[in-house]
């Protein structure tokens, strides 16, 4: 697992702060704007950098601590750029009933990373998710944006291969 203490400081991206400020400015009028802003920043820029937090806090007139608290509460918000392909394996009960624990072991073996980690070659980020609502067709795995059902180890190999 990467913690903030050991994570390499992200390289500042030119113009990033300006873009984050624009996104936050566009959405600040929404009720409860912070989470929609964080989603929008992550969707466009890939993750929520520590430097972004101060910018968003400034736009919303919140303390940096408040924004930091929200970013770190929710699993969705990444603090560093993910690998080229994200692979999320469901680990909830219904998928466990059809071999999701064993599939997760296999996914760790094949990607070379644990849950929440990115492979050394930057190819994959592996995550665990508790339920995609595909409980009758498990084990469920999301590769990139696409959800897959009844994923066997062989099928996972094929999906990872397609993503290379």
């Amino acid at each position, binding site marked *: 697992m990467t913690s903030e203490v050991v994570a390499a400081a992200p390289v500042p991206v030119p113009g990033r702060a300006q873009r984050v400020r624009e996104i936050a400015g566009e959405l600040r009028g*929404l*009720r*409860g*704007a*912070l*989470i*929609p802003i*964080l*989603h929008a920043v992550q969707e466009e820029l890939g993750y929520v950098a520590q430097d972004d937090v101060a910018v968003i806090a400034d736009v919303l007139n919140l303390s940096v601590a*408040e924004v930091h*608290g*929200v970013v770190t*509460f*929710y*699993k*969705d*918000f990444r603090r560093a750029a993910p690998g080229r392909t994200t692979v999320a394996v469901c680990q*909830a*009960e*219904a*998928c*466990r*009933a*059809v071999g999701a624990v064993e599939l997760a072991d296999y996914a760790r073996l094949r990607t070379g990373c644990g849950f929440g980690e990115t492979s050394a070659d930057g190819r994959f980020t592996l995550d665990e*998710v*508790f*339920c*995609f*609502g*595909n*409980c*009758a*067709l*498990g084990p*469920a795995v999301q590769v990139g*944006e*696409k*959800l*897959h*059902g*009844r994923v066997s180890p062989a099928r996972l190999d094929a999906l990872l291969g397609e993503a290379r």
Partner: protein
Amino acid sequence: MKIFVSRDSAARSVGADEVAERIAAQTQGLDVEIVRTGSRGMLWLEPLVEVETAAGRVGYGAAAPEDVDGLIAAGMLAGEGESLGLVEELPWMRRQERLTFKRVGVIDPLSAEDYEAHGGTSGLRKALAMTPADVVEAVVESGLRGRGGAGFPTGIKWRTVLGAESDLKFVCCNADEGDSGTFADRMLIEGDPFTLIEGMTIAAYAVGATEGYVYLRSEYPDAVATLKAAIERAHPAGWLGPDIHGSGFGFDLHVRVGAGAYICGEETSMLESLEGKRGMVRAKPPIPALEGLFGRPTVVNNVLSLATVPAILTHGAKTYADYGSGRSRGTSVFQLGGNVAHGGIVETAFGITLGELVNDFGGGTASGRPTRAVQVGGPLGAYLPVEQFDLPMDYEAFAQAGAMVGHGGIVVFDDTVDMAAMARFAFEFCAAESCGKCTPCRVGAVRGVETIDRIVAGTERDKNLVVLEDLCELMTDGSLCAMGGLTPMPVRSAVRHFGEDFTA
């Protein structure tokens, strides 16, 4: 002619897009329209292809993309060849009583014309012709109880919000369907989103709210896209906006996407999240009906509760209340998942037994091995052995058995399951997803994992079982919300019914 292929994300997860593409390629130049519907809920038959014939829709499934050419060669376009027969005559469909899910799998989810042609908007039109108080009383009379899990009477909640004085009230739909084994909210939103919009609009009219939010989990990207598209189309149709159906009543609806926190399915945590904060549970009172979103009177209901309201208004409260058993009135949308041969959606009146659902509808396990346990009501629900399969699906009957109906999800396990591992996972999950506000949940979950590890390692087993029971009692009685309060339910039921697994 029309051919129907599901666009539901479960169907797509096993190749429905590829099947639809193949059919389109093979029928080029022919008078064929491919309609992408929701799913009928017979998920083991997905991808299911339905062909319109004079007698009704004929089904073909499960159809792989490579099966398409052969099916067409055998006469599929004329409803011929080896088929499942008429889809609505299949025993799985005939035995159901679909009110909430009436249109799911039948219509194009984003077609306003389809929606109206299949009875949509009639509930809202009836409601707008009544006084708000009469709408509330109709929902009370229907006996509808919260489908999210708690089972609180929906109409009583609405009555409280109607009676609250405020210049701003909200209707919030809890679509943070995080419970494993439940997928009915997702399928309803992907398959018939206008029904949810209609139900929320009726709720808003009934209680005097002008603004609504659907809190939809990020794990459901297809549902998010479908609902947003439906809201966009509802405005020009006059179903949302400043003057709904020319009544002068105005209501606006917004989608907010969650961010991967299970606890945000708890209603007060969801409200915090909607306000842009950490999803920390609030102490009650004050109840959200009086001080909810941004401190204003707020209706918070589950997707299925709200989506059932149009049917109640359309058919009448009494007709709805005639379904069901005891104090569980109406129909419920049960979901069969896990290691089950025939998984999917079963909407039927309360009172059907657990065994009928698992064996008659579900057809036993997918692995073909004996069923050993089923978990009902999500990760916080009890594990039940086959000896309890005669339990009727009824809120009170389940409560008496130390279990809960919850959101109606049923997860099946075969005889290879290690129930001590499942009990340990219940604590692990609680430790991962606890908001951390109250100590019994935050610390208890961690201690629970450790205690089960000691029990299965054979370290003072009997003494540690006493510690485990004591911990469960404390979490049940001392936690702030259902997360910590109900985590003991799967644990205790596993120990009670499957004690032989808790050994070294």
